[in-house]
């Protein structure tokens, strides 16, 4: 038994290159896994199994004749359902876009197609990426592959769960305040949010434009480097995309952390941090010390201000970005209405869920005349201070090591009653988005309940190579990325 669905991208590539398996065998294995696990995990909004299998068999002949074009060639993958795909449903897990098929592709899809990737499905998410558990999805209830009573995290919970359960060798997600790293931590996979502007946002349905960034879910760190390498690069269609610059994430990946300065801040170990996670952090410090890295204590005074600033900025931008869903041109329009304003009100009232409405209202309020200075403007000032704080931090260390989340996964309904409690799920991830810097969440073992723990490594802008080098060294010592979620099908 080859157990292809549990293999990493790099392993699958090696097997194909050696002639030990074929593209269609791989896609078939993933399709079988989807058939077995999806009824419980519900990671996908749309699966494209038939289409993927056709593509894979077309690859068979080509690969046989010409060999593989690259590591991602003929490997299936999943996209979060907020990334536009021509003629394929792109719902953002919202009722209001439940019938929306864009007539264009997002840039990352084109990049992966160029590498020979095979799209196997579009994954579930919190509605419009607003949430930390996938519970705000209007379309699916994604469960945590490690225990179906627990949430997979969010908002990219579907992508995290798909990779954790072997239903996709890798997946892309988007991260506005932790939406890749938090579910990666909760599902026990590697999740990376790159520097803002490194990956094109073209075709990513906007939540908060100045914070949104596309990133990856993979089973291990090497895969993360491979997929990141494939999706980065300047895009003329995205004005906020940074000019072409080469970050070599692959060559030095396994060269170790000797002499690297890894920062630790007490600010991230405050009240509410789960004991087992603190222990994981201590273990990581030991591992890095043994590997020759230098551990330095750093101050991080702005943590308490990050979350409020984030919710003001993100909601303000969201209130504007989501105004276009008015039932006029696409998406769902209310059936009975009396005049224009009534059509707007009914379409939006029926089309959006509570969390989306809450943030639209919050954002609208924060931008209103008379409140702008007190909320939005002040939040932008905090943003500047956080950027400055990170600059100071990275003068004394190369990377900042923190927990990804304060707790491991939680049960359905546990945090839905109190939105603020849910918002706190992103406490450690949000500052990274505010500063636009890169960070990765890596698996750090399991807690007593058998739920995954994640640690976060964050570095200055364009330090993806350094981050991944440190992540690989940790993985190499601990092998936590070898752990696989138990299958639902016994």
């Amino acid at each position, binding site marked *: 038994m080859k157990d292809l669905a549990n293999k990493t991208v790099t392993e699958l590539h090696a097997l194909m290159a050696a002639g030990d398996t074929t593209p269609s065998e791989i896609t078939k294995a993933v399709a079988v896994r989807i058939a077995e696990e999806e009824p419980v995990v519900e990671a996908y909004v749309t699966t494209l199994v038939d289409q993927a299998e056709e593509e894979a068999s077309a690859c068979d002949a080509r690969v046989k004749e010409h060999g593989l074009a690259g590591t991602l060639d003929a490997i299936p993958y999943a996209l979060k359902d907020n990334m*536009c795909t021509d003629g394929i449903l792109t719902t953002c897990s919202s009722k209001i876009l439940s019938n929306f098929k864009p*007539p264009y592709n*997002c840039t990352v899809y084109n990049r992966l197609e160029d590498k020979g990737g095979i799209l196997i499905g579009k994954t579930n998410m919190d509605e419009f990426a607003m949430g930390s558990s996938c519970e705000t999805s209007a379309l699916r209830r994604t469960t945590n592959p490690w225990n179906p009573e627990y949430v997979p995290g969010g908002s990219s919970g579907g992508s995290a769960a798909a990779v954790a359960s072997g239903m996709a060798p890798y997946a892309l997600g988007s991260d506005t305040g932790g939406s890749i790293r938090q579910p990666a931590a909760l599902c026990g996979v590697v999740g990376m949010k790159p520097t803002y502007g490194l990956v094109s*946002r*073209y075709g990513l349905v906007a939540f908060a434009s100045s914070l949104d960034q596309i990133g990856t879910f993979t089973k291990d760190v090497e895969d993360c480097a491979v997929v990141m390498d494939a999706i980065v690069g300047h895009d003329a269609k995205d004005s906020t995309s940074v000019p072409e610059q080469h970050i070599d994430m692959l060559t030095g990946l396994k060269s170790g952390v000797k002499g690297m300065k890894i920062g630790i801040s007490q600010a991230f170990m405050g009240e509410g941090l789960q004991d087992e996670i603190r222990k994981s952090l201590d273990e990581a410090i030991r591992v890095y010390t043994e590997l020759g890295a230098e551990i330095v204590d750093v101050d991080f005074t702005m943590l308490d201000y990050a979350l409020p600033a984030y919710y003001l900025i993100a909601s303000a931008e969201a209130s*504007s970005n989501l105004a*276009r869903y*008015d039932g006029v*041109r696409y998406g769902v329009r209310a059936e009975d209405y009396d005049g224009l304003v009534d059509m707007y009100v009914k379409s939006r009232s029926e089309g959006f869920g509570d969390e989306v409405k809450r943030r639209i209202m919050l954002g609208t309020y924060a931008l209103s005349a008379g409140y702008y200075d007190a909320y939005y403007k002040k939040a932008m000032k905090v943003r500047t201070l956080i950027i400055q704080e990170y600059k100071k931090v990275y003068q004394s260390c190369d990377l900042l090591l923190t927990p990804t989340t304060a707790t491991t996964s939680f049960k359905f309904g546990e945090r839905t009653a109190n939105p603020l409690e849910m918002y706190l799920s992103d406490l450690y991830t949000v500052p990274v988005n505010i500063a636009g810097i890169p960070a990765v969440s890596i698996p750090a073992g399991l807690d007593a309940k058998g739920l995954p723990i994640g640690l976060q490594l964050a570095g200055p802008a364009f330090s993806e190579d350094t981050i991944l080098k440190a992540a690989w060294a940790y993985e190499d010592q601990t092998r936590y990325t070898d752990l696989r979620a138990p299958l639902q099908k016994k």
Partner: protein
Amino acid sequence: MEYDIVIGMEIHAELATKSKIFCSCPTEFGADENTHACPVCLGMPGVLPVLNEKVVEYAAMAGLALNCKIANFSKMDRKNYFYPDLPKAYQTSQFDLPICTGGTVTIDTPDGKKDVGITRIHIEEDAGKLIHEGGGGTLVDVNRCGVPLIEIVTEPDLTNAEDARIFAEKIRDTLEYTGVSDCKMQEGSIRFDVNLSVKPKGSTELGTRTEMKNLNSFRALMRAVQYESKRQIIELKKGNRIIQETRKWDDAKGVSSSMRSKEEAHDYRYFPEPDLVPIVLSDERIEEIRSTLPELPEAKRLRYVNDFGLPEYDAEVLTAKKALSDFFEESVALIDEPKMISNWLMVEIPPLLKEHELTAEEIPFTPASLAELIGLIQDGTISGKIAKSVLADMFEAPEKAPKTIVDEKGLAQMNDSGELEAIIEKIVDENPKSVEDIAGGNKKAYGFLTGQVMKATKGKANPQEANKIIREKVQAKIDS
């Protein structure tokens, strides 16, 4: 009590770029509905804007032409409101950091020169158009969505309708001259909003203002200002207060009326557009843009007076329209007769343009043809009078060279004195009465004889030559 009128204007002008502000859709006017549309200007989910660099350049050019300061750093903002002609539900515009600020425009009014301050010029996108079908609901045409605009905002420096018109025309001429906008009023590519208030004469405190939007002719602008200022004065005299509101100008009825405008309740919630990076223009880049500015009317007028020796008046008329001054300069490059060219462009050509329902931009023949026509007068081939008839023919058959017209119609002057002498001799013989009159001191009779000669030669006689011969022949008659 007497009142002062205080007028400020907001002018929207479409920029003459080929493509829209954030996508590559064409801006061309008059296409079928919704054919100039793509996911970007339709505001589809996930798409992103990319700022057309030409828009920045044109906006800066407009600013330089109106003596503004061009910002090294400006940014785009979102102006949020719901309307079906606005696909993103926000208009991308500029709020607190516009590209141009602090300009001045000097206008020539009947009361002398006046300065009008330009508060700011900012870049923004146009919205689409709603088409209300009788009973069939409302349709949206998005062709105009994302057509680039500049909005020019003035200080409240204008004080009467005539000045407002002169100022508006000057802005139109300047934008047209610089090539920043084609300013076709009938296509709505330049539109005027007027903010107007009145105050007791000499008072320093401004009154409450009203706004009239989208006045799309100079006549409408003048009439709207006249009506609205009168209305406000009458209201105040009745002891009523002016309500701050947007009023609709009905040009057919010649009245303004209160618009039931929801806009008053609008809070546009401006904030920086996160999908675009700030507009950064270095001093070098600004100078580079300045160097591409064509010569503006004032400078050109001075040059026409100094270099071509034209009277002030000619220089002013010729430079008022870019098309006219271009035609003049191309002609003068071919034949060094500036005053003659000016006369033809100012006196002879306009009535013919009017007759053929053409504008100054549409002179049907080339400057080379006009130069050739003037050359034919200069070398004595035709008289000025014949030239006028040739000009009329040039309007009918613009592809024909003036020389060809002259040849085909046999209009060349009779410069052969032998032939002319014979004709004149005959006329002098046939009109002894005239000779008698001249002998008796009535020189007017010369005119009659000249007329007869011209009639006999169908105007082709060279007038000077003919006059000389007539005098000789008459004298010979008297002497004999």
